[in-house]
Structures are given as structure tokens and as C-alpha cells.
């Protein structure tokens, strides 16, 4: 087990995976606990980033001759950019309407 985490030959896949898992769950935690929309967006970015790492790593280790994983990572970064732009526009709008940028304002879906 141990050599799958730390190995003289190189960096094992498992190590990358664990790093991405940590980022991912940190993002999830942030998403759950933060009221501020900006903070939630930051958490979402963390989650996306975790996914990107996995794409790149799997491509490199498991499918050496190919490029799909890298391109997925690339596209994801682009999508993240779009998403951020729109999200920020919305957040600014929320702020304009409510005087703050907190998610508790948005409760139209409450039953």
C-alpha cells in the first residue's frame, strides 16, 4: 500500500487522486457551509479544479499516447470561465437588489 503512495520510481496515480479528492471535498464543504455567493463560487471552482486534475492525470498515466483527457481539462477551464462570468453577473444583480450577496435571499423555491 505504502509504495502506492510514496515511491521512488515516480509519483503514483493514487497520490494525485487523493489530492484531487481532498480539493473536491474541501470544495463541497465550502459549498455547504458558506452563505456568501462569492464563497460558494470559490468552492465550485475548487470542485472543478479537482476534476481537471483527474482528467490530466488519468490521461497521462493510463492512456499515454492520447490527448482526450487534456482537452477535457482545457474545455473545463473554458467552461469554468463562462460559468464564473455569468455567476458573477448574477451575484452582482443579487447584491444590487438585496444589498448583500447572500444565498438566503434566494428562497423562491421554498415550499
Amino acid at each position, binding site marked *: 500500500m505504502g509504495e502506492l503512495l510514496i515511491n521512488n520510481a515516480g509519483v503514483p496515480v493514487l497520490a494525485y487522486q487523493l489530492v484531487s479528492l481532498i480539493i473536491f471535498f474541501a470544495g463541497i464543504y465550502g459549498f*455547504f457551509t458558506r452563505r456568501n455567493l462569492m464563497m*460558494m463560487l470559490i468552492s465550485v471552482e475548487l470542485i472543478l479544479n479537482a476534476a481537471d486534475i483527474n482528467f490530466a492525470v488519468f490521461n497521462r498515466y493510463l492512456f499515454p499516447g492520447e490527448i482526450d483527457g487534456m482537452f477535457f481539462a482545457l474545455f473545463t477551464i473554458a467552461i469554468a470561465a463562462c460559468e464564473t462570468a455569468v455567476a458573477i453577473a448574477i451575484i452582482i444583480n443579487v447584491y444590487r437588489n438585496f444589498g448583500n450577496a447572500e*444565498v*438566503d435571499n*434566494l*428562497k*423562491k*423555491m*421554498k*415550499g
Partner: protein
Amino acid sequence: MEYTLFVLLLPLASFVFLGLLSNKLSHKASGMIGTASLLMVALLSYFAAGEYFMTQKTGALFQTLMPLNLTWLNMGANLHIDMGILLDPISVMMLVVISTVSLMVHIYSLGYMKGEKGFQRYYAFLSLFTFSMMGLVLSTNIFQMYIFWELVGVSSYLLIGFYYTKPTAVAAAKKAFIVTRFADMFFLIGILVLSYYTQTFDFGTLTSGNSAVFQQAISTQFLGASALVWAMALIFVGGAGKSAMFPLHIWLPDAMEGPTPVSALIHAATMVVAGVYLVARLFPVYVLFTPEVLQGIAYVGAFTSMFAALIAIVQTDIKRVLAFSTISQIGFMMVALGVSKFEGHEGLGYMASMFHLFTHAMFKALLFLGAGSVIHAVHSNEMENMGGLRKQMPITHLTFLTACLAIAGIPPFSGFFSKDEILSATYLYNTGLGVWMTLVAGLTAFYMFRLYFSIFWGKEKQHAHPLHESPKSMTFPLIFLAIPTLLGGFIPFGQFVTADRAPYTIHMDLMVAGISVIIALVGILIARKLYQHPEKPVTVPSGLKGFHKAASHRFYIDEIYLFITKKILFNGVSRAFAWFDRHVVDGFINGLATATDWFSIRIRGFQSGEIQWYAWVFLFGTLLITALILFI
């Protein structure tokens, strides 16, 4: 004799015409149109009667004619309701009676109703009533009769409620309609039962005396009696309702709220004898196949006549006295039918009943019109406001006296003959019943002369304005009706109308006649002694106080009805139903809705609207499902 169709069409046309144009026509014009059409109807009827009784006789028997019979509505393979005209001795006789009385009432109303609001409407309704009544007597089948039976009820409702702004009139009209409709329901059920087993509505088939028609009806038993007995008894209940037999008589006294000429036409002469006519129409069935029902009819009639006579003694409203007298007299007719057999001398009762129907129509109409004349002058129905009117109103007085003598059964007035026949028939049947009916005859004489003396004798009362005789349009009918009242008894009725259609010569039973005349005279004398000088108040003997009180309250029958209908049916059952509907049936549906609502309120906490909470649950679920897939 197809022209008899016009007897129906003319009043109908006049009704439609007056009804549609009521606001456009003047009072006078509408009265004239109504009266003119009725005059033509009356002439046609007399002509038809003449032609029928002169020519339509094959051998010794009168024929049944059906100049017109069209299918109106098909009901299955065999049953169909027809609309047609049936002419036989009783229907022709009824034609004469109805058209005569109706014409007189039309003429009379020209004076009596003068200046009333809704005069046109009044004449329209009168025409409608005449049409319905004519249709009823001319029916060729029992369903046609039922149709016109209902129409008669409707026109009666409309006429009783003529003064529709008066709550008592509205209530009386309602009561009359509902009580008779209640009885009609039994009539209808009777028709249903009868028609199911015989597969016909037609009077011709039903009254042919052919037992094959009733084979199935007799052989089917239900609750201890044959279906035919049930059917005929139920049909009689319908007749009893229209003819105000006990215990369905309660509507008739109240119906006096209508205009007096209406009472004369509907509630004395024509509509109320429809029940008698119905029994007479189906008489062959009753007498040949269900004698037990006929016996019941006799007892109901006997009881009713005594019952009504007792109440009539203590009434103070003159129209009510007459109303109860009518009930009592119809009881006579029913008894006569009930005790009758089919053929020859045994069939005397049938003839007597029809005879009495005829004479009664004339003198009772006369009495009512006379009473109307008095009311017109005095503006009150109560006896205590009247007295000594014989000087101011000589014509009314004389004609009224004629009618009183007729109803009391004093020779040679018409009532004597017909009543005598009835008494003879009852004695023939059963002496006890004969004695009972003789007593009723005595009571009749007593209460009628109580009425007569109270109105026309005694001290004159103070009135707001001087009294005077009624106008000619009102006195003419009085005089006209006095003629048959005086002379009607000499018509050889047995030659025309008998149960088996064979002519029958009336034999006066001197014994019975003597007794009845003596009893009547005694009644008159007592009445004279008590009421000729009513300034001396009549004291009720202490032994009869209780009776007096009960009779004044009409033996509390109305109260019993009120209790049953108002308290139990409408307040109890109906309220219970309404409550049940709102709370149980609807409550169930609403409960379903409420339960859904309650449940959704309980679970709506999950829909907090917080995206993070949703995400939390989502992740939780994902992990759970993954775990389940992995470990199970």
C-alpha cells in the same frame, strides 16, 4: 262526431291567445273572448250530448265512440300513449256538466272579478282549466287521463294562487298542488303496475270485462294481494286525492283562498269529482275483478262524508262550510259507486252516483256562486258579519234557498232524487251503511240551513256602505243554475247512464225516501230554531264542548299533516339530507383534500429553498446509493 275535438281546441286556443296577449288586451275584450269561446264549447257540448243520446244506440246499449285517437308517445313494443276523444254516456254527461258550470262561471266572473288586476290572466287560466278538464273526461286511455289529471292540478294551482301577493293564497295553492300530487304519485304507480301486467293503457281494452287481459295481473301476488288489487287500490288513491277523500281532503278547505267563482268551478262542480269519474271510468275493472277495493272505496266514502259533515257544522267561514259540504257530498258519490254492482237493479249505485254528480255540480255551483254574491256585497267570508240579507239580495236569497233545499234532499228539488237513489243503493248493500248515510243526509240538511239562516235571516248587521243585489252578470248564472237545481231530478237519468249501459227505470223506494225526507226536515227545523234568530247566541251543550272544539280544528288532521311534513319530512329528513350532503359526502371529499394538504405541509420543510441543503441531501443520497450498490 269529430267536431268534439273543438271542445278541446277552443279553450286551448283561448288560453294561448289570452296568455300571450294578456297585457295587450283590455279587461273587457279578454273577458268576452274567454266567455265567447266557452259559449261555443257549451253549445257544442249540448249538441254532442243530444246527438249522442239520440243516435248512438245499438239495440239497447249505448256505444263507445272514439272519433279520434292518435299515437302521442311510444313506450316499448306494446305500450303507447294515445291522445284521443272517447265518447260514452259518462263522458258526454261530464261534457255537459263542465261546459255548463264553466260557462256560468265565465259569465259570473265578468261581474265578480271586474277591475281585478290580472283579469286577462284569470280568464286565460279559466280556459286552461276548462281545456284540461275536458281532456280528462274525454280521455281514451288511462295515461291520457293522467296527463290531463296533472294539467287540471296545475290549473287549479294557478287559480287558487291567483291572488299571488297574498301569502295565504300562495300557501293554499301550494298545499293543494302538493297534496294532490302526492296522491297522483300513487295513481302513477298504479298505472305502472296495471300497464305492466296488462300491456295496455287503453280504456276500451281495460273496461271490456275480458278477464284474459288481467290474467297475469291477478295471478301475480305481492304482499298478500294480487297485483291487480294493488294497482286498482293505488289508482283509487289518486282519485281520492283529487276528490278530497279522507285523509287527503286537507287541501280543499284551504283552496277556498282562490276567487269564489274558481271555487265554484273547480272545487265544487268539476275537478273534485274527477276522482269519482275515475272510479266510474274503471268501474268494470273494480266491480268485476277487484270487489274488495270497491268495498274499501265505499267505506272511505262513508267515513269521509260523515267526517266532513261534522266539521261543516261548526265552521264559521261560509266558503269553508260549502267546502266541507262538497267533501261530504263526494263521499256520497263514492259510497254509491262502492256499493254498486254491475248489472240491472244491482247497478243502481253507479247510476245514482253519476246522477248525484250531475245534480250536485249544478246546485253546488249555485251555492258557491250565491255565496260569492254575498261575499261580493259584504266583503267578508265570516257568518258573523252577515244576517238579514234576504231583503237586500232577493235573487241571491231565492236561488240560494233553492240550492239549500236541493242539497238537503227535499222533494221535488233535484238533490232529493239523486240522494234518494244513493240511500236506496246503500240500504240494498248493507242496512248499517244505509242508516249511517241517512244520518249524514240529516246532518247535511242541518248545516246547510244553519248557513242559510245565518246569512239571510236574523238581525241585519252594520255595513260600511249600503248593500244591494249583485249586477246582472252575476245574477243571471244564479237563475240559470237554479233551473236544473229545481227540475234536474225529473231527468230520466237511468235511461242514459248506467253501469252496464242498459237503460234502467228508476223506482222510487218510498220507505227510504220517506225516512230521508223526515230526517232532513228534522235537521232543517233544528237549524231554524237555533239560527233563525241568531241574536240569541247558540250555546254549545257542555257534553259536546270537546267535540265542538275538535271539529272546529277539523279534528286536528291538518296539524298531524303539518307535523309529519314540516317537522319530520322537511325539517327532519330534508335537513338531515342537506347536513349529510354538506358534512359527510362533501366532508369526505374535503377531508381527502385536507389530508393531502396536511401531508404536503408536513413534507414541505424539505423544500426549504436553500440550494445548499438540496445539495447536501443530494450528496447524501449519492453516497448512500453508492454504498448500497457496493456493499449489498
